[in-house]
């Protein structure tokens, strides 16, 4: 399919004999936000880590553009990885470096910019995520929301085509949750990114997504626009939506 940025075909992965990804196939459209929802432990984060080669599948293919990253060697894989920016769940900032050095890190590693130009870029990126003046702070001095912003600035530093985001709002208060979701939406629209977001926050998912994918027990059970998902008759989707949007989660 021409407009797919990422094509996943029949992905299998198991840990210690337990199947986490179970014949998962998926097309992720270019320049749109795809939000992947599902219950905790249903393989969402494991799936995201496969997309950037942090984990290798037992079987299956992952095409980034035309490159099947499951068969690439380290050097070729690293070339593909430079198309990505990734925001980790707890931001994964390097805690031995200041915020500025964190954001500068990918530029120092992969660009030929001079130190002064790197600093300009860093300040520009920090400004974009609303972190002016925080460049000399250490990650331990930042609040949860600020860490996410700094992580986002670092992920955007090399102008990625594809943005991977793992649970952007877990552990944040409702106001900060809304602020981060807004920032992610604006960033995607402004930079025209292909964005893949893992979440179990349904409100955020419906706010951000052009398309929603629901994963259960390691495979895709529903995919569609937010409207289609909302109106889905699938009992599992209904159960998930009703628990997430209207009441406390059902015990199982």
């Amino acid at each position, binding site marked *: 399919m021409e407009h797919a940025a990422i094509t996943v075909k029949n992905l299998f992965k198991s840990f210690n004999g337990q199947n986490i990804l179970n014949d998962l196939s998926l097309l992720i459209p270019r320049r749109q936000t795809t939000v992947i929802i599902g219950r905790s432990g249903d393989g969402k984060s494991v799936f995201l880590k496969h997309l950037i*080669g942090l984990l290798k599948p037992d079987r299956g293919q992952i095409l980034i553009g035309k490159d099947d990253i499951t068969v690439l060697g380290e050097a070729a894989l690293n*070339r593909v*990885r430079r198309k*990505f920016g990734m925001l980790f769940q707890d931001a*994964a900032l*390097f*805690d*031995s470096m200041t915020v500025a050095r964190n954001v500068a890190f990918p530029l120092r590693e992969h660009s030929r910019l001079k130190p002064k130009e790197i600093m300009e870029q860093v300040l520009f990126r920090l400004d974009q995520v609303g972190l002016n003046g925080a460049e000399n702070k250490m990650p331990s001095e930042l609040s949860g929301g600020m860490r996410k912003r700094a992580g986002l600035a670092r992920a955007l530093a090399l102008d990625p085509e594809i943005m991977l985001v793992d649970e952007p709002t877990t552990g944040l208060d409702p106001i900060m949750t809304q602020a981060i979701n807004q920032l992610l939406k604006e960033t995607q629209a402004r930079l025209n990114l292909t964005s893949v977001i893992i979440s179990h926050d349904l409100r955020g998912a419906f706010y951000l997504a052009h398309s929603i994918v629901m994963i259960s027990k390691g495979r895709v059970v529903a995919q569609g626009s937010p409207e289609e998902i909302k109106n889905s008759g699938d009992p599992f989707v209904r159960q998930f939506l009703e628990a997430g949007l209207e009441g406390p989660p059902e015990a199982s």
Partner: protein
Amino acid sequence: MRFLDSFLGKIGGWVLAGLNQSGGMLIFFLKSLFWLLRPPFRFRLLFRQMEFVGVKSINVVILTGLFTGAVFALQSYYGFAMFGAESLVGSTVALALTRELAPVLTSLMVTGRAGSAMAAEIGTMRVTEQIDALTAMAVNPIQYLVAPRMLAGIIMLPLLTVLTNYIGILGSYVVGVKMLDISEGIFVQNIYTYLAMTDITMGLIKAAVFGLILSVVGCYQGYVTAGGAEGVGRATTRAVVLACILILATDYFLTAVMF
């Protein structure tokens, strides 16, 4: 019979876990060597680690060397005095230090200081996804984190051992000559007579091997950490215990081959 089964099963389990661990560590070491020899060479990280492993261990090493030399002089004086050979205290201490005590004790002290810190730091980076972040940013974490630490261990341990040798002999001199009244000329002359250059160089080669062991074990235990803060604690303990045992065991085999 059931008791025997479970007993043998346990021993088998330990053996398999041990083999698994050693195999993992060997592969990790070979990978680190591979990435050490490939550009980009990160001199800044290397120097930072050399400072951490070496320069910041100087105080610990001085104290260790001083007291080891001093107590060894005291003990050997007691033995030698029984048959009037007090003049051999200096050379005995010097030989024991350069061949054995200085490389081993220095490495054990640095394991406690720097090996444990390597495991804790890399382990924390593992559980907070910082190592995944490095990989995601197309930077090989073994090259970035492990290779500089390994090289720093290999370079700095021999240098620290030179210092321990010197301070240890100084300690024995103070005790032997200044406190126990051994003749200064004979004390020093006997060191020159009995201590050969190979004693010192072999000791330094041992130190380099121990430096490699403590850094690889520390980094490996950190790298494979799982299970949050508790996991980091376990990794740190395991790194220190395992490195110390490996250093002592390797010491025996190196001594058997070298001397």
